[in-house]
């Protein structure tokens, strides 16, 4: 069943390629396949029962490279299931949004379906090499999305994205090899490594964790590894940005909770001060630089650095020791934030794409008073902006509240990051004011309002964010048992 969810998008991608030449067919297949994938994940979620501590649901295992102890091993728990659901939803939104796309729809749809398969595969992977496989393939797929369908200086941005994240993936690979060599018996299997705890009380563990953390931090991205992100986002197509921010960035933070923290707990504890610092700086720096942007898409890109910084902060605090309840709250908040950020930022990037498709620019100075020619667009953007700045009633509030409640409980110093929320609020309000209020000027007059496809896709994401904001219990109940077992593994 789980493998079906991984392989189905791949099969659909092949079908789309076979239908090449007929754009309408490709779009219909894309939409249909992503809808089926949502149904598949819904069935997975409906049948999910919390497995015991360190257990997995829907576990499947096949021989792959037995001589180095690597296999096709997949399974889900409370940390991965929400992200698989997020992936399915984001890709469906992209398929709806791209309904009107005319630019080589067949290869584009195939690429997105390929990316969907790699993302679901990564969140389900229970083997380091399998994880790495999907990690690398997602980079390749996104490179072609940016280079093929982007705009502006797309070749350069795509290359920068590829080189940067590929460097990260190789650091990750070195870390994985270190874990493999440290384990007795040698294996790449994650549950197996979890049992044997390689590199415990071994100073080499610090270095191995260092390699893993650098690899994941580049993908996340945190300061100072974030420089690939703004150009990649600015020049990617709207759906590409939505997938990149909504799903691919989560691969980094998911790697922390799936690999770095449970497999190398003592090294993680030793790294806590550095990680807290990185988290705080990412939160504040991301927010401040976003404040200084006049390009709307770059601004959203930098708020991603800020929002992902909260996750790093929470996970770092969870390793600090002390009150387990607070640390569990922090981890649960971090995973909730992964989902919440995916939904909200996905919607924001899709909305930003609307501006570019109409006016050819993201420059906030080129617009003004947009609320009167495009009221629906203004309303949607305002809702997304309020969701993003963490207003109660949205998923972002649930996530950030837990992150801060848990983190400050464990490491009071993390309160330093609190002004980040204030700055984000300021920058979103300022953007709303500049673009939407006042008399229409610049490129605003006559700008067409949201088309149904655009409204349905972004609206769907925002409705989900509100649902999580109002009824968070089902999501939190899925995540918390996994957070509890992660925190008990970390000890301290």
């Amino acid at each position, binding site marked *: 069943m789980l493998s079906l969810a991984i392989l189905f998008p791949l099969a659909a991608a092949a079908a789309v390629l076979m239908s*090449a030449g007929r754009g309408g067919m490709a779009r219909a297949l894309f939409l249909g396949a992503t809808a089926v994938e949502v149904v598949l994940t819904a069935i997975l979620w409906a049948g999910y029962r919390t497995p015991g501590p360190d257990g997995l649901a829907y576990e499947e295992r096949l*021989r*792959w*490279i*037995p*001589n*180095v102890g*690597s296999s096709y091993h997949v399974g889900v728990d409370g940390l991965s299931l929400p992200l698989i659901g997020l992936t399915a939803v984001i890709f469906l939104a992209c398929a709806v949004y791209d309904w009107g796309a005319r630019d080589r729809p067949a*290869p584009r749809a195939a690429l997105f379906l390929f990316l969907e398969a790699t993302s679901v595969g990564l969140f389900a992977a229970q083997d380091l*090499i399998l994880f*790495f*496989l999907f990690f*690398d*393939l997602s980079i*390749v797929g996104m490179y*072609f999305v940016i*280079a*093929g369908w982007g705009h502006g200086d797309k*070749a350069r941005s795509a*290359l920068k994205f*590829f*080189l940067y994240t*590929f*460097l990260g993936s*190789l*650091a990750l*690979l*070195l870390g994985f*090899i*270190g874990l*493999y*060599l440290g384990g007795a018996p040698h294996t790449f299997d994650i549950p197996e490594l979890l049992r044997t705890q390689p590199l415990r009380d071994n100073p080499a563990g610090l270095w191995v964790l260092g390699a893993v953390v650098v690899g994941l931090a580049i993908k996340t991205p945190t300061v100072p590894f974030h420089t690939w992100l703004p150009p990649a986002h600015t020049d990617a197509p709207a759906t590409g940005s939505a997938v990149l921010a909504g799903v691919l960035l989560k691969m980094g933070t998911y790697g922390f909770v799936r690999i770095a923290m449970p497999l190398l707990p003592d090294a993680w504890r030793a790294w806590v001060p550095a990680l807290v610092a990185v988290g705080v700086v990412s939160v504040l720096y991301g927010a401040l630089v976003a404040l200084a942007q006049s390009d709307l898409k770059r601004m959203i890109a930098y708020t991603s650095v800020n929002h992902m910084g909260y996750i790093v902060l929470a996970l770092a605090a969870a390793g600090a020791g002390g009150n387990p309840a607070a640390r569990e709250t922090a981890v649960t908040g971090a995973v909730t934030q992964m989902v919440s950020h995916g939904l909200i930022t996905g919607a924001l990037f899709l909305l930003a794409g609307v501006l570019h498709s109409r006016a050819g620019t993201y420059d906030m100075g080129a617009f003004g008073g947009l609320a009167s020619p495009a009221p629906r667009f203004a309303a949607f953007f305002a809702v997304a902006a309020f969701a993003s700045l963490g207003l109660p009633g949205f998923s972002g509030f649930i996530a950030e509240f837990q992150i801060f409640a848990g983190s400050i409980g464990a490491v009071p110093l993390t309160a330093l990051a609190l002004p980040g929320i204030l700055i984000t609020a300021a920058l979103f309000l300022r953007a709303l004011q500049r673009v939407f209020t006042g008399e229409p000027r610049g490129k605003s007059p006559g700008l067409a309002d949201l088309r149904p496809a655009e409204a349905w896709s972004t609206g769907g994401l925002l409705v989900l964010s509100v649902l999580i904001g109002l009824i968070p219990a089902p999501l939190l109940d899925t995540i918390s048992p996994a957070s509890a077992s992660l925190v008990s593994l970390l000890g301290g």
Partner: protein
Amino acid sequence: MNPGADALALLPEILMLTGAITALLTGSFVPRERQWISRIIALGALAASATAAAAAVAGTATSAYSGSYAIDAGTGAGRLVVAISALLVIVLGSDELRGTERESETYTLILLACLGATVLSGAADLLVLIAGFLLASIPLYALIGIGRTKNGAEAALKTYLQGAFFGILLMLGAAVLYAAAGTTSYAGLRSGLEHAAGAITGVGLVGVLAGLMFKAGAVPAHFWVPDAAEGAGTAAAAFATTVPKIGGILAAYRLLEQIPGTVAWPLLVALFAAVTMTLGNLAAFAQTNPRRLLGWSTVSQAGYLLMPVAVAGAVPLALPSLLIYLAGYAASNLTAFAIIGAHPDRAELRGYEGLSTARPWHAVALVVALLSLVGTPPTGVFLGKLAVFTAAWDGGFWWLAALAALNTVASLFYYLRWLAPAFRAASPDSPGAGDFSPRAWPTRVAIAGAALTLFVGIGGGILWAGLA
């Protein structure tokens, strides 16, 4: 073992030799337009040789002719990869070579060079090693220059001069090792060199290794590689950058396994590996000709291939990782050359603009080949890289693994310089204007090679476990 059994154990080699002679004789009697007969003979001989080799792989490790020729996993993999690579090379060259003046001679030379590479991979005696070196080198010089182009002649001369020089070093080194150990057999070297002075062993070893580095296309004997890749015909270039490497690297592995620890050869080989991969990558950056780019890329690949050689015999993963890397590399490199062979007149990277819309399957094959050379899963070279990185680190060379990872990122940069145009729309001023009329046989080889590359990456692990 009786002589008959020894000869039977060498069946794959004998089939190659018989094929070479038969192809040559047949070729001299049939008219030029029917030279395809000798092509069929050559292909048949290689297929038979590969089959015999595959059948022998399952057997127990043994040796022939008083221990001078080892028949084990290393030889088995060498035989198989060499024969299959040569098979692909000949099919790849079908359109290019059909009806040319020296068609059957080309096949003969390919088969003889294959035999040389195979002998190198199995040699367990310095004298057999020298014979294999000569047998692998002399046909290669002729192959590179056989097209009689200006560049081909220059490349052949360069290769010949370097080959002669490093061949002499090889023989000198062998002589020194013989003087120190009193024997030329590898088994004897191990005990004989235990008590020899480290300096003498070192001098002899460096000489022999220098010769083998020429075959492997590694620093310091790598200068012929990019010239041969550019100047020779496509089939000859594909051959020269693939097959000799297999023999040279396996020979180095087998010899070093026997050298005692009185000389710090692991460090020496690790340094060779580090310099080779870095230099090859740096030189590949500036290339605008796809053949030269691939030429330098194969130099850097030789560096990665030397990583498990540096830990030869010290870690269990060393030999399997080397063999998997060799298989993945051969499939990927030949696929890339097959793409060049399908579009032979495109002398610059920009010439590939528009390939993905005009010939999507070619673009897919190119992606698979180049990303495999980078080391992206789930391709053959990824599995190889994973294994050699692990082997090198396990043997204590963690810095080499880290350097190799950095080099991998650097290599991505120039492979993308070829991939990016292929996925760009053709502009009116792109060379060839985006019109692609590929040759038929190289196209088939490219598709088959891409499939093989993926097969090694996905199925290689299970295959490997089955053999172990």
